[in-house]
């Protein structure tokens, strides 16, 4: 699998650790991006306003303000995709960040490939996303949104309405994180945003029907306690 060529973008790195900024800058510039840096949360917010980046890599541990506070402030006036660098191992912290408006996260320490893959997911042009009614093919799985049918290696897979909705949500966000609450709200409605056991049951059924093994997933990857991610390409 070769990495698809990414469109050059303006990326802002907010991290107080100079060595981290340094290797991120080198790696991102090698990918063809334009990189700006900020060492504090305050400077980061200012840089975001001045340089209008297309994505932000935000470290949570900043000396002057909490990364989550930076995120909330950004979200008041900007929808720019944010990738969070987190040392937090706790699910609650990650969920809180995603709820606060982060699109995705990477847990430190991380390999550069993982970070670049996440960034690509964020940077993929919203306009190029599959519209409702289009068909999606991922590996041997073809999902037709208009006909609401799924075939695996040519064989039709019978899905219920809700199972199809869930699969379409995940597949149309391939490579991106879909949090539990996002999935629940989208498929079952706002009232069920907390009922994660529904989701687990449906994911299990879905995996069984499309022939995915939770122990060795090909399509649906679990981010424990946070959500799911559909394989990209």
């Amino acid at each position, binding site marked *: 699998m*070769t*990495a698809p060529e990414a469109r050059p973008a303006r990326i802002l790195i907010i991290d*107080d*650790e*100079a*060595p*981290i900024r*340094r*290797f*991120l800058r*080198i*790696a991102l*510039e*090698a*990918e063809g991006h334009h990189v700006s840096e900020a*060492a504090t949360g305050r400077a980061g917010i200012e840089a975001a306003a001045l340089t209008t980046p297309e994505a932000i890599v935000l470290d*949570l*541990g*900043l*000396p*002057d*303000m*909490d*990364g989550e506070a930076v995120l909330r402030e950004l979200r008041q006036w900007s929808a720019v995709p944010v990738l969070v*660098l987190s*040392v*937090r191992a706790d699910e609650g912290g990650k969920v809180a960040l995603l709820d606060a408006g982060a699109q995705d996260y990477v847990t*430190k*320490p*991380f*390999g*550069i*490939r993982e*970070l670049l893959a996440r960034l690509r997911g964020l940077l993929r042009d919203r306009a190029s996303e599959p519209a409702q009614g289009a068909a999606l093919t991922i590996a041997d799985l073809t999902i037709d949104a208009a006909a609401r049918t799924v075939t695996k290696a040519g064989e039709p897979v019978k899905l219920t309405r809700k199972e199809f909705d869930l699969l379409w949500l995940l597949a149309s966000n391939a490579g991106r994180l879909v949090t539990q609450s996002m999935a629940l709200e989208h498929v079952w409605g706002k009232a069920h945003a907390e009922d994660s056991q529904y989701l687990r049951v449906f994911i299990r059924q879905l995996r069984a029907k499309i022939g995915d093994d939770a122990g060795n997933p090909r399509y649906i990857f679990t981010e424990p306690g946070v959500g799911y991610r559909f394989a990209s390409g």
Partner: protein
Amino acid sequence: MTGSDLRPEPDALLAQAEKEGRGRLKIFLGAAPGVGKTYAMLEAARRRAAEGVDVVAAVVETHGRADTEAMLAGLEVLPKRPHFYRERILHEMDLDGLLMRRPTLALIDELAHSNVEGSRHEKRWQDVEEVLDAGIDVWTTLNVQHLETLNDRVARISGVRVRETVPDAVLELADEIELVDLPTEELIERLRAGKVYVQDQIARAVNNFFSKGNLTALRELAMRAAADRVDAQLQEHMRANAIGGPWPAQERILVAINEAPVARALIRTAKRMADRARVGWIAVTVTSPEAEALPEGDKDTVAGALRLAERLGAEIATLHASGPVATEILDYARRRNVSRILVGRARARPFWNRLGRENVARDLSEAARDFEVTLVSDPKDETPVLSRQGWAVERDPAAYARAAGVVALAGALAWVADAWLPVPSLSLIFMTGVIVVAVRHGLWPSIAAACLSFFAYNFFFTDPRNTFFMIRQDQILTLGLFLVASVLTGNLAARLRERAVAQRAIAERTNLLYDFARQVAGAASSEEVLRAASAHVGAALGCETVLMRPDAFGRPAIVASEPMRDALDLREASAADYAWTRGEEAGRGSGTLPASRWLFVPVSAASRRLAVLGIAWKDGRTFSPVDRRLLDALVDQIAVALERTELQRDLEQSRVASEAERLRSALLSSVSHDLRTPLVSIIGAASSLADPDLALPRAARTEMAETIRDEGERLDRYIQNLLDMTRLGYGALKLKRVPSDLREIAGGARHRLRGALRAHEVVLDVPEGAAAVLVDPLLIEQVLMNLLDNAAKYAPDGTRIDLRARIIGAQMEVSVADHGPGIPAHARARIFDMFYRVAEGDGQRAGTGLGLAIARGIVEAHGGTIRAEPAQADGTGTRIVITLPLVNPEHPE
């Protein structure tokens, strides 16, 4: 009675609950020896054993009777334990053996038995209580004349008083009473046939005791005692189950006692009244300045009577009267809902002794209009009692010598005054002298002075002078009156004096308590409290004291003593142990191990037992009630003070524990968060280099590799810091002092840190010549690296860091100053603590939080100091200043 009153009474439920978990007590009650109590008990026990119950005969006295011995066959008999007493071997029940054996049911014959001196308890019923406490059921036997309150009546009926008595409360403890009854004629028949074993006193009066009339009366008593008990059980049941009934308001009977011999009879009467009326009772004694002046024997009488009352189940109280005693008693009685007051009839006294003395009984019956007052007289106490108060003979010859001196002085004055005054008036001079003697030295010297004065006056001043011969009748009368007046005033003055002395004693005790309170208020540790306490108790009571707290094995060990001692003998130690484990008094004057020289009192607060106080007098006396009261007050104060220090210690411990917890979590966060930070760069950079898809230019590759190197070094420093800290913590840091050039050390630190210092300008200001110091260069380099690393971490990129060194006096001062935001004043002292960082939380800079703590450890190991201060004129920036003493290279340590 309304519905809401039909709740079970808490007290009744509590009593029932207390019984649960205890063994059950069954008493086989008989009217006289020989009715077959032991036989009945064994018969029942055999049935139980046959049912499979684990029965052990702990003590069964068969007195050699064959039929009884036959009943014993087949039951497990606990071997007795030999006691060596006055060169004789006596056998007693093996209490510890029984407790270890732990049968379901223990047979313990003859509840009223007194144990041989030196046993754990004075009386067998105390053994039984302990066995019951251990959850073992007990069956026992008892003759009715051994009941404490019936003792008087049995004595009156039979003319025989038994020494061995059992408190009535024990009977109330019994869950079941079986009356073993035998018709009187049959008992007499058995006696004639020699089937009855008779013991000690009864044996002496055997014919008297076993008369038909006596036995009938005793049988009735036994039946009534059993019936009363059944009645009490019924009431208890009704109360516990809230069965409505005309329960009287909780009235009480109050019995007031003093040193009069009637006290014990009063107590017994009160107990019987209270039992009959089913109400509580209170025994009070009133202390006053007069009571303070009582001879020791009388104080013992009062203390003994109060102890008896307590044993019989009374609440006891000591009141303090400054005014009339009767008023004090009545006030107390009204407060406590007392309905009836018992008081002893006033003793007959000589008229002079009644002067100025309160007749409490009369005052009470006059003033107590809302009470029923019962006067009790002691049948044996018909003879007038001379109050010994004020009549104690003064034995100090000096007092008499001074009395004689005063008379001589009065004589000399009279000699001079003789020229102006008529002869009868001269007697007034002598009278003055007598009063002076009475006030200063008490009654007997004043009587001596009166007699001397009488003779001196007679000899020198009445005509014919210089003879003892008197002519005029009026002079004889004058002299007679003179003598009487002397004795009366002397007596009054002496009493006044005694009262003043007693008042002073009270004041002294109050002061003592106050001093003690003040002293322990400042005590920081339990040991200090105990030391102060032992000194004070010793001083207050004039006794030896020890204060003990449990050692590592939970046994009380001496913490403080007065005078110094570090061990007690075995018997005392076991008494102390008993007092500690059971929370009851033990030792001299108590019911447990009374043969020991020491009395041990537990010091407890509401929630826990704190210590044991032991006291002993050299002369082996026991307490007066006043001493007892003082001791109780002191024990209370010790308890309060100890509890305070214990709470303080607990607080301190939990603070230390939470500090340790904080350090541990800080260490964990350091390892998980801060050590990982360099790894982020290392893994990120390495994965970038390794990624074939990433087209990195040559310069970028070099930069990535440098990042990996720098961050690897940083990681190494962190780990080094953690190791150093452990070494510092264990005191394993060894200085290798060598003459070193500080400029060289500083240069080395800067070079090693060049990666971290890349964005800052470091300016060294270390004069070459002044820089030779005797230090451990490796460790000082570590210090400087930590300081420079910190400065680079907190100061913005592109700013300047100054490293300066100067010799000031006998010290080398080295400082590292930056242009960072600075450290708030309140945090400056704490930044050298382990894991302390000014900005806590996730926003902290990477770093173990150990750097400054290690710097301090190393600097202090060199005998130096370290501090933080603002670096710049506007208060921003941080300057860390270390001072190192300049050690003479020829004498390094």
